[in-house]
């Protein structure tokens, strides 16, 4: 508690995440309330999740973390993956749109999205596994959750896919990169 005041955060819930929120509410609630010591409630009318610090909140950054956590869930990440935000400091969420990379219209855009995910999502999963990130493809928007370096690698891979690289090439590049990054440690 930084200056004695109670602080609030409000995270709006998009309609497509409403039902999943309902289902996963307890999983969200428990770590926030128990471990982070942040009050959390759902404002059904406003369709927002409200967070408030308590008296015994150890650190004001907890509030921000919880807000990020909830926000990540709203973006589309799983609770399990989003919980990593609570546990680790260095994880970030990066978002960009397809049109940021390349202006695509109509079928090209659709094809690009298809390229990104791959058949049964295998390209997306391969990127996720190779770079230790989590990716959410929401039509035009792409969200990446992970550490800074990994986000970068994943973003490069995704951008190359958007730009038209075949998945095989992307895979091989990913492999090289991950092997190199693994050697560094």
């Amino acid at each position, binding site marked *: 508690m930084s200056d004695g005041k109670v602080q609030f955060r409000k995270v709006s819930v998009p309609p497509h995440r409403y039902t999943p929120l309902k289902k996963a509410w307890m999983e969200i609630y428990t770590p926030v309330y128990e471990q982070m010591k942040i009050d959390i409630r759902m404002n059904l009318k406003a369709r927002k999740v409200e967070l408030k610090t308590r008296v015994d909140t150890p650190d004001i950054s907890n509030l921000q973390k919880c807000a990020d956590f909830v926000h990540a869930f709203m973006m589309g990440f799983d609770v399990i993956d989003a919980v990593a935000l609570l546990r680790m400091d260095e994880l970030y969420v990066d978002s960009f749109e397809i049109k940021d990379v390349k202006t695509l219209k109509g079928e090209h855009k659709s094809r690009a999205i298809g390229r990104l995910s791959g058949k049964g999502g295998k390209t997306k999963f391969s990127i996720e596994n190779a770079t230790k990130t989590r990716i959410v493809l929401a039509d035009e928007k792409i969200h990446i959750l992970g550490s800074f370096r990994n986000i970068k690698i994943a973003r490069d891979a995704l951008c190359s896919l958007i730009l038209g690289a075949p998945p095989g090439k992307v895979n091989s590049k990913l*492999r090289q990169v991950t092997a190199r990054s693994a050697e560094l440690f």
Partner: protein
Amino acid sequence: MGRPSEAAGMEALHQLKSTEPPQWLAPSASLSESARAASQHLFASLRPHVRKSPFDELLVDNFDAEQIWQQIDLLTQPLVRSIRRRVKHWEKNPAEIENLLPEVADGGKKVAQGKKMEEIDDDDDDDGGDMDMDDDDDDDDEEMDVDNDGEQDGGKDEGDESEEEEEEKSGGIEDKFLKIKELQEHLEDEEARHYGLDAKNKKSKKKSGSKKLEDEDDDSEEGEEDKEEDDDEDEEVDLFAGGDDEDEEDEMGNARYEDFFGKKKGGSEPKPRFKDELGEDSSSGEEEKEEELSSDDDDDEEEDDDENVNKKPKVLSTHEKEVQKIKSEIEKMEKANLDPKTWTMQGEVTAANRPKNSALEVDLDFEHNVRPVPVITEEVTQSLEEIIKKRIIEGQFDDIKRAPGLPSKAPRELKPVDENKSNKGLAEVYEEEFVQQTDPAAAPLSFSDEQKKEASTLFKKLCLKLDALSHFHFAPKPIIEDMSIQSNVPALAMEEIAPVAVSDAAMLAPEEVFSGKGNVKAEVELTQTERKRRRAKKKRKFKAVETKKMASKKAREDELRKQKEAAGNGEEQ
């Protein structure tokens, strides 16, 4: 030691003369005997002429050849000297010869004298020759080994006789004044006096054989080169000894007035001139010796052959000759140095400075910086083609191979990227990563480790199966303790795979089959008491079982009765 008669001695001589030359090659006792007899005879005939001699007769019995020779030597040396003196004396005063021979008739005095003189001369010559021969042989024998003294005497006799025949054929020029043979010998003696042994050598060479050793020995003190030269020339000349003789005789035949009395000037020069001519004819290289013509004759008269070394004061000594040689060489070299050098010895020579086409004649040596163009012949091309074919067949092209890089680090394990949705949450992924970084041991097995484990288990299974296929090297299964029922069936039945060898051993070991304890005896081995015991035991057992049965049966029956009673009682009431 009886002195043999003269007849015997003559006979011995004749015998020696008549023997064939090949017979002399092998030593034979008879020839030796006759030789000794002949020597004795000759010795005896000569003995009276010598005034003082230690030996009255030649002692030959059991005496060595050397010893006999020494005796002869002792006798003949003074004799030779005296005879020579006498001969010279007679040469100067021929009239005295007539006095020597009183039996000569007056009528044929001249002829007879001439003949006699011839004979005497011949005899004298023979004797002189003999004496000369003896002297020469004395010198010879110092080097040469002669087994038989008489051999040489015999040989000499033969030689003398042959020469006599030769001389009689000489021609019609001779008369009482001019006897060519006499003249020859006189001249040769003169030469010998002036020039040393050469004339005598010639003479003796005509008769016997080589005198080389003698000459070399005698002239060792003098300039050897001279003598050798002369010897060579003499030898050369003496090879044609017969021809020389004839040449000289021809020249004698062509003698003219001028030769004797000069060109109407005086008579003092004929002899030197003649000697010049002879000198030139006989030995061409003896120019030095013409200088010695003016030397004194008297000095040489008393010298023996052995001392001819001291006769030439004007001949240069060895050292002087060497000095002369060196001087001439030095002059030559100096001259060469002063002259302009040949063009090959000059430094840089352009074409203008040397004669035309002279470079072609000289072997020039310079470096070629260019490899010579290979001459392509059929063989070269064939060899090349063969090499090519061979290489093609082998497949050994000299391709450049990439040099293998040094493996500095372990090859990365490329784990294939999983294309499925990962089961772990992101947090767990990072958790694992963190743990691996901090504490590698505690980290859960990585993907590769699991794979390794799987691979190792698979391989073990495979190995097991393969081992089972090799029967007697069978490695048994790892013992996993679990119960298995072993039935006592022969092994043949259990094996499925076609066995190379079959064993019909029972599965169970004997101790497993056997159920019993103690010392088991076979039926036949049992004694009476044991049989009885066995029967008693059996009976007891049986009885025990029976009683038990009975008891149980009774108990059951009792129960049944009781139940029945109970039931009956129940019904009654």
